[in-house]
């Protein structure tokens, strides 16, 4: 779960529009306004960089990026080669 923890930390410190808000794995990052569309691009770039993989534009959707839990599940499937 190292990725999960690092993602939470990265989003809280670098992407969140309200750095004082507490973010957990199930926090809805979108309806709370914590992450805007440019923030999502930052998250995607961070994931690609760190994991040395490519995320297809068609995979950058709400269902994969609404929460940190969903992001790690999506990345898990991606790296499992599914």
């Amino acid at each position: 779960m190292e990725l999960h923890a690092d993602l939470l930390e990265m989003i809280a410190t670098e992407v969140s529009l309200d750095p004082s808000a507490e973010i957990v794995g199930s926090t809805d990052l979108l309806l709370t306004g914590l992450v805007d569309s440019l923030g999502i691009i930052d998250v995607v770039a961070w994931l690609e960089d760190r994991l040395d993989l490519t995320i297809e534009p068609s995979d950058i959707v709400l269902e994969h990026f609404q929460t940190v839990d969903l992001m790690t599940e999506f990345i898990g499937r991606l790296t499992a080669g599914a």
Partner: protein
Amino acid sequence: MKPSLLSDLLPRAATLPEGSGGVVGLDGIHHGWGEIEELSRRLAGTLLDLGVRPGDRVALLHPKSVESFVAVHGVLRAGAVVVPLDPLGSAVPLASIVEQIEPSIVIGASDTLARLLAPVLARIGHRVISTGSLDSLTSAGVGIERISGWDEAVSASTRDHVLPTVEPADSAYVIFTSGSTGEPKGIVHSHASAMAYVDRAIDFHRLTSLDRLAGIPPLHFDMSTLELYGTPWVGATAITIGEAEQRFPVNLARRLESERVTHLYAVPFLLRQLQQRGAIEQRDLTALKHIGYAGEPFAPGALAELMAALPEVEVTNLYGPAETNVVTSHDLPAIPDGLDAVPIGRPWPDAEVRIVDDTGADVAAGIEGELLVSAPTCMVEYWRRPELTAERLHPHEQPGRPPWYATGDIVRIDPAGVLHYLGRRDHQVKIRGVRLELEGIEAVLTDAPGIEHAVVGPVVAPDGDRALAACLVMQPGVAFDQRAMRRWCAGRLPAVAVPTTFSLRTDLPTTASGKIDRAAIRDVLAVEAATLVDAKNEGNRI
């Protein structure tokens, strides 16, 4: 006969034949105009029961939804003035707006109200109508006796109330934008000014009863008036676009396909995202007929890419400050093939324009100057700011004509009578279509602990999007903490107004009169940003 009141639009739409449009919710469920009319009438009745009187303000803090569409019209039909607020906004400016407008009722989503307005609601004691679970509001300190649930507010018990008579000159809504002092200022439109806009807009967007308009702009943004009032006027369908589609271009593209959207009206930023990241080549967007854009210039290269990707779609550039609504437009005759900016076009019917120099005298044809507009679509005033209103609105020399509004925009007119936008005469900038006053942002930064001076300027980000950069001078002995600064900004500025980069200086250049030379610093910020872009592009090529 043409309707003359926003509050008449739904009753009129409800008499259209079955199947003539309506509102599609985020869940894809279609609600006909008859149903929307009925719900808005019940809500208006509830508002009257709760003591709302003609001219009262009702604040609306709700994500886009069928409910928010109903709420806007319910408030108008109760004779009140609707004040849409940004559900993704920051607590401090929102509280300032609520205190300025003194609403008699606040309508909102419970979670959003609790997150952004709880201290104000707890202190002032407004009555609240809320969708969603009421627990989040009560635990935020809003007494349960002050809260009405949405279902109760639109129940059948209030459907037969007699609604007040509204006059065209009555105020209808207030749109708030950032002010140069950091204090938001409210732009007040009447039923007459809004209806004059909608009357023209449906023609220029070529909107008919068969069309399906994606409602992209948020409600606190004046561009949302097309879907709110234009779709019921012609009996078209408004497709509600939510936060997911705003954030994720792929989700937006899918929804445009599944809802067979025919018309888009959005800021260039969002259309650019759609084209670059929406994977639109995988979608069937053949229903799409017309794209209108407004809010800021569209970079010609980016616009050319969008138009090449959607070759069958007609594109119109629409121009107008929120104070006047749209007053000029330009239909793109072909895909732009150079770097020349797209013109803002010719004035709309009954819109008079003048181009003046610094002394207020008309310039010769072809010479640049400030654009003045007199149009029936013009606002009434700035909310409770008579000095500011007098500064920007000047009586027309011919009695009975709408006043002249000084736009602050520098334009020139070409021999064909087409207007070209050249820039601003003050320090207002547009970031992703949102109007920002640089001085207002600088005031917020300078108020932060430890900051001596702050200068903010627009820069072009690596992906071609515009953003803000800040240059700071710290007070002696204070270290800069970027995270603390971003936290400070988050509660006080809209997200687009938070600078993406902060650079530190020990002193700042001054002008001959000893003032900080903001123009020079803004130039430096822009050049530094461009250098970063070059470095990044260089890196990508290797």
